[in-house]
């Protein structure tokens, strides 16, 4: 049996924080995610100092909300990403204030089984494989969609393409990624 892969380890830490308020597990999550969150925010155009603050606040939110993490519904990275996304929105949104969309449904009351963690692990591995296999043009469109802070109509201009071309690349990319995520639903 090999060592647990990153997502299983991250999920176990998150569950420990959520159920036992385990500070050591939180510190481990901090070292793994805070520097990536800060890097993400900077890449999305947030100045370094504000990105530092937002990454710290995001980690604080991880501590506060960890009990809502359900590995049957989201990989650890996806869950961490929703926390980061909401901090990013708070950081950048001028104008209309409203609570961010509550994307992930509330957790089941059943505790996470080892099978659940394994399935999440496999989903995560398949997603990473599919992401690496994307053609460069689709990967570029995907990174534009996530990182470029611009209006919808400017999305094409950034890549020097008609908006329709960017949209069709994103459609193709998401079809592949979603089918990679869904594979386990089809196996008996």
């Amino acid at each position, binding site marked *: 049996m090999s060592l647990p892969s990153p997502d299983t380890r991250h999920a176990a830490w998150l569950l420990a924080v959520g159920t036992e308020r385990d500070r050591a597990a939180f510190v481990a999550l901090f070292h793994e995610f805070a520097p990536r969150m800060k890097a993400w925010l900077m890449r999305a155009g947030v100045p370094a100092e504000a990105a*530092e603050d937002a990454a710290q606040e995001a980690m604080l939110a991880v501590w506060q909300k960890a009990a809502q993490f359900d590995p049957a519904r989201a990989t650890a990275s996806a869950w*961490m990403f929703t926390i980061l996304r909401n901090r990013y929105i708070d950081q950048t949104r001028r104008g209309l204030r409203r609570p961010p969309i509550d994307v992930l449904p509330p957790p089941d009351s059943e505790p996470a089984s080892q099978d659940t963690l394994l399935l999440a692990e496999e989903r995560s591995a398949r997603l990473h494989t599919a992401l690496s296999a994307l053609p460069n043009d689709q990967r570029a469109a995907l990174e534009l969609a996530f990182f470029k802070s611009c209006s919808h109509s400017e999305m094409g201009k950034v890549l020097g393409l008609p908006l329709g071309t960017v949209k069709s690349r994103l459609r193709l990319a998401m079809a592949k990624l979603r089918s990679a995520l869904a594979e386990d639903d089809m196996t008996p």
Partner: protein
Amino acid sequence: MIRHHPSPTLLLRCAAGQLPAAHDAVIEAHLARCPNCRAALVDAMAVGGALLDQTPKVAMAAGALDTVLAQLDRPLPPVAPLKPAMDFVTHPPGRWRRVAPGVATMTLAPRDATGTRLDMLRVAPGSGLLSHGHHGLETLCVLQGAFDDGIERFAAGDFAEADDALDHRPVALPGEACVCIFATTGYLKPHGVLGRLVRPLLGM
């Protein structure tokens, strides 16, 4: 049955936190009735998570961990729950303003710093909106009734999005009044003399 959904691009931008809040509100009205799109958004979040995994780390400030640890036991600030958009039909949060025969609007949020505003629209059966195109993104979710945009039928739960490219002239179909929630970035560009006359009334 819902037949019109947000595009993958729009759901990705929503997942990324890159859409003006008013468009998120319209998408949320659709998600409340469309489990498939909610699942698609969850998958987009998973893609965001995978991209986060692949993001190279940058150093946090010295003492960052201690700063955060010192705050762990701070109590949570309360967050007011958001009313689901569907409630807006039975419990309008504002006042309907008649802007043309058979047409009323209600402002839910004024134009923000991104040039985006959130409104509701109520159109009596058979009444039409002006033919209009767009300078920016427009999203719309039907909350009640149905309309026909000259090409297709949109009923409760259906979602429409338009960017620069589209010209259409929505007409409410027979039955109950058609009520929509919609967000617009930038200004509509009504066509024709009537459009130029009514545009100031609509304030769009």
